[in-house]
C-alpha cells in the first residue's frame, strides 16, 4: 500500500481584484473517499479546485497536506506532491500517441535516447490498472472521449497522484462511458486515492459521492455525507429556491400541420435513410448514444455536411446546400459546441449576436446603433448576465454563453430550430431558464428539435422522441411511452419492438 494524502482547505478566501469569489471555504479530502463539489456555474467550484491544485493561490486561508501547511507555487509543484487536477477540456496533445501523452514532459530516457520499451510497458500497466483497452500507440485524436478521460487519469496516476481532482469528468461522456469511469473511480478509491469531482448531474453525485459540499455564490451553503441528501435537496441548496419542477408544463398545443418533412436523408458515413416529420409548434426530441449520428444528421440537414435526401418545409420542397440556404428557408441549427463552433470567444457580445444575420443590420455599412438595440433586447429577453456589455464572450460563464448563442440564432427568426445539447455543462438554475425559453418558442408556433444525451431532458421537454442508433432511426416514442427504459432499449438495439407491441 502506498502512502495516502489528505488535503484540507481551511477558511479559504479568494478575490479577483475587488470581487471576492470565495468566502471561508472549508473542505477536507480524505483518502479513499469521493467528495463531490456541486454548485451553479460561477458558484466558485473552479476557483476552489484551482486553489487545491496550485493553479491559483488563496487570498486568505491555508491549504494543508496530511496536516502540514503547504503553498504550491504552481500546478507543477502541486503535481510533484501528488495533487493532480484533470481539466474538463482534455489537456492532451491530439497528434501524439497515448503513451507519448502519458509521459509528456516526464519522458523516460536511457542515455541520450527515449526509453520506449519501458514507457510502453508502463503505459500498458497503467491502462490495465484502469481496465482500459486502448492501444498505447494509438493516436489520441483517434480514440473515444471515454478513453481520453482514462488516458488523463492514467497520466495523473503516472505522476503518482494521491489526490485526484476532476472537473466535470462526465460532461462529455455518454451514460455508458460514465459507467466505466465510475468503476475506475471505485477502484482508485479502494487504493486510497482522495478524489474530488464536480458534476451537474445530480444522480451521478448521489451514486458515487461519499461526501458532498455545496457552494452558492462562493459560500459553502451545505456539506455532509452524501447519504443525507436526495437530488431535490441538493438542487434546492444549489439554487436557493425550489426547483422540483425543472421542466415547464406544456402551455400551447401542438399543431397538426407539418413544418418540416425529411425523406430519405443520408449523410455519408453517419446517417442512412432517415425520414421524419416535425409539426408546427412541436418539440421533437432526438435521443441516442453519442456517435449514433444525431449531430451529423442534423448538420447534413442544414447544409453543414454533404447530404442527400428530400426536404420539404411547410409543404414546399427546398434545396439546402449551405447553412445560408437553410437560414433563408427558416431553418437554423444551434451547435452543441458553443466554445469552438458557436461563439467567437475573443469578440464582444454585439459582434457575436449579429454575426449570423449581419446582412439584416447592413445598409452599405453595419448599423451599430440597431445592433446595440438588438443586444439590449437579447440581454433582456434571454436574461444574459454579463459584467459589462463589452466583455469578451470567452469570459462569460457557460450558462450565459449558451443564452447568448440561443439569442444569436433566434435573431435570425427561424421557424424551425434544431438545438443540439441545449444545456451541456450548465447549472440547474440556468437549465430551467433555457427550458422555459424553449417552451416559449414553441408557444410562439416555432417548431423545435432538441438533441440531447440527457434522457431526462428529452423526456421532460419533448412531445415525441426519435431514438437513433448507428445512423438510423431505431424507433419513436411519445406520451407515456417516453421512458428512460424504452429509449435506452432502442438506443442500444435491445428487443425494443417486442416491448412496443406488448
Amino acid at each position, binding site marked *: 500500500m502506498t502512502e495516502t494524502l489528505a488535503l484540507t482547505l481551511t477558511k479559504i478566501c479568494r478575490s479577483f481584484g*475587488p470581487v471576492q469569489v470565495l468566502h471561508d471555504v472549508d473542505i477536507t479530502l480524505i483518502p479513499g473517499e469521493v467528495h463531490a463539489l456541486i454548485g451553479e456555474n460561477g458558484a466558485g467550484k473552479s476557483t476552489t479546485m*484551482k486553489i487545491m491544485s496550485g*493553479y*491559483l493561490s488563496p487570498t486568505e486561508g491555508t491549504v494543508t497536506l496530511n496536516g502540514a501547511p503547504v503553498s504550491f507555487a*504552481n*500546478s507543477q509543484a502541486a503535481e510533484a506532491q501528488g495533487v493532480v487536477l484533470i481539466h474538463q477540456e482534455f489537456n492532451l496533445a491530439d497528434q501524439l500517441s497515448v503513451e507519448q501523452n502519458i509521459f509528456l514532459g516526464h519522458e523516460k530516457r536511457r542515455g541520450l535516447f527515449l526509453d520506449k520499451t519501458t514507457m510502453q510497458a508502463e503505459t500498458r500497466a497503467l491502462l490495465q490498472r484502469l481496465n482500459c483497452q486502448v492501444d498505447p500507440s494509438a493516436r489520441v485524436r483517434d480514440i473515444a472521449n471515454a478513453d481520453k478521460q482514462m488516458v488523463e487519469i492514467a497520466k495523473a496516476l503516472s505522476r503518482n497522484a494521491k489526490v485526484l481532482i476532476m472537473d466535470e469528468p462526465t460532461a462529455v461522456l455518454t451514460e455508458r462511458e460514465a459507467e466505466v469511469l465510475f468503476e475506475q473511480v471505485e477502484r482508485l478509491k479502494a487504493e486510497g486515492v482522495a478524489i474530488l469531482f464536480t458534476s451537474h448531474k445530480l444522480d451521478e453525485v448521489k451514486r458515487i459521492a461519499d461526501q458532498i459540499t455545496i457552494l452558492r455564490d462562493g459560500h459553502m451553503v451545505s456539506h455532509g455525507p452524501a447519504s443525507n441528501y436526495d437530488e431535490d435537496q441538493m438542487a434546492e441548496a444549489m439554487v436557493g429556491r425550489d426547483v422540483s419542477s425543472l421542466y415547464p408544463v406544456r402551455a400551447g398545443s401542438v399543431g397538426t400541420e407539418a413544418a418540416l418533412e425529411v425523406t430519405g436523408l443520408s449523410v455519408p458515413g453517419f446517417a442512412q435513410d432517415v425520414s421524419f416529420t416535425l409539426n408546427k409548434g412541436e418539440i421533437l426530441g432526438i435521443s441516442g448514444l453519442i456517435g449514433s449520428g444525431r449531430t451529423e444528421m442534423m448538420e447534413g440537414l442544414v447544409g*453543414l455536411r454533404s447530404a442527400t435526401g428530400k426536404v420539404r418545409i411547410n409543404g414546399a420542397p427546398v434545396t439546402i446546400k*449551405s*447553412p*445560408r440556404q*437553410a*437560414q433563408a428557408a427558416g431553418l437554423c*441549427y444551434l*451547435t452543441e459546441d458553443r466554445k*469552438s*463552433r*458557436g*461563439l*467567437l*470567444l*475573443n*469578440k464582444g457580445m454585439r*459582434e457575436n449576436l449579429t*454575426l*449570423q*444575420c*449581419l*446582412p439584416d*443590420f*447592413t445598409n*452599405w*455599412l*453595419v448599423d*451599430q446603433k440597431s445592433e446595440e438595440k438588438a443586444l439590449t433586447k437579447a440581454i433582456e429577453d434571454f436574461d444574459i448576465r454579463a459584467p459589462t456589455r463589452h466583455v469578451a464572450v470567452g469570459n462569460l460563464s457557460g450558462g450565459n454563453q449558451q443564452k447568448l448563442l440561443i439569442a*444569436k440564432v433566434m435573431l*435570425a427568426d427561424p421557424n424551425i430550430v434544431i438545438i443540439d445539447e441545449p444545456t451541456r455543462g450548465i447549472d440547474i438554475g440556468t437549465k430551467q431558464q433555457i427550458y422555459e425559453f424553449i417552451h416559449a418558442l414553441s408557444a410562439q408556433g416555432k417548431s423545435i428539435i432538441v438533441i440531447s444525451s440527457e434522457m431526462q431532458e428529452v423526456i421532460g421537454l419533448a412531445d415525441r422522441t426519435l431514438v437513433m442508433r448507428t445512423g438510423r432511426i431505431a424507433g419513436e416514442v411519445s406520451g407515456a411511452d417516453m421512458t428512460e427504459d424504452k429509449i435506452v432499449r432502442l438506443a442500444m438495439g435491445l428487443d425494443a419492438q417486442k416491448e412496443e407491441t406488448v
Partner: protein
Amino acid sequence: MATANAKKKSSIFFDLKVMGPILALVVLVIVGAALNGNFLSAGNISNVLSRSAFIGIIAVGMTFVITAGGLDLSVGSMAAFIAGLMILVMNGLLPSMGPGWPLVMVGMLTAIVAGTTAGFINGFLITNMRIEAFIVTLGTMGIYRSLVTWLADGGTLSLDFGMRSVIRPIYFDGILGISWPIIVFAIVAITGELVMRRAAFGRHVAAVGSNDQVARYSSVNVNRVRMMTYVFLGILVGIATIMYVPRLGSASSSTGVLWELEAIAAVIIGGTMLKGGFGRVWGTVIGVLILSLIGNILNLTDGVSPYLNGAVQGVIIILAVILQRDKKAEG
C-alpha cells in the same frame, strides 16, 4: 474609488496596443526633425509619402488577408510580373494605337485584370483546393518572379520612350501639389478602414480569422470571404503597379523584391494579429509610414549608415510585436 477611476482612465489613454504605433511614429518624426532641417520640408514629406504609397496600397489589402487568417507572400513578385506585362502590352500596342491616354488606359486595364486573376488563382488554390496559404503563395511567388525574369530575358523590360513622357504624370503630378500616389493611397486606406470597421465584409473577415468553424456555423460563406480577400489584394497590387511603372518606366527581376515582407511587417507593426481575427487598417498605414521614415531618416543623417536600414526596421518589427502581445495567462 477615485484611484480606481484614475487607473481605468490611464489604461485607456496609454493602452500600448492602441497608442504604440502612433507613439512610435511621433517619436520618429521628432527624431527626424531634430537630426535634419529638411526633414519636415514639403518636398521631403511628399517624397516619403509617394514612395510609401506602393507598399501602403498593397499593405491595406494584406491587412484583410492576414485578418482572415491568411497570408500572401507573392505580392512582390506579382507586382513585378504585372509591371512587366503592362509594359509589354503597351509596347506591343504602341504601333497600332500610338502614344496617348487610350494606350495608358489599356495598360491600366491590363494591370487590374492581371492583379484580379493572380489574386483569384491564389484564393482558388487556398480555399477550393485547401492548400496552406503559405505554400500556395510561396509557389506563386517563385512563378511570377521567374516569369518576369523570362519575359525580360534576364535583363530589363523598358517602356517605349515616347510612352514614358505620356505616363509620367501618374507618379509625378497630382492635385493641389499632392501627388497621385498619395491621393490613391489615401483613398484606398480610408475605404479599407471603413470596410474593416463598419462593413459586413470586414466583420466577416475578422470572424473567419478568429474561428472559421464559428463563421461557418453562423451561415457565413467562409470560402467566399477568404477568396475575396485574395482577390482584393490582387487588385490592389495591380493599382500599386499602375503607380509604380511611371516612376522608372521599366521592370526587371529585381522589381518589387521584398515588398511582401515590408507589407506584412507594416501590417504587424500596425497591430493586426498575424494569426488572424483582428485587424486595423489605420495601424497598417502607420506601420508603412514608420518603415519608410526609418529609411528616410537614415538617408538624411550622417551618423548611421543607410545600409543599416534593414537592421533598424527589423528591431522595430520585433519591438512592435513584443509591445502588443497579450499578457501571459496565469499558471
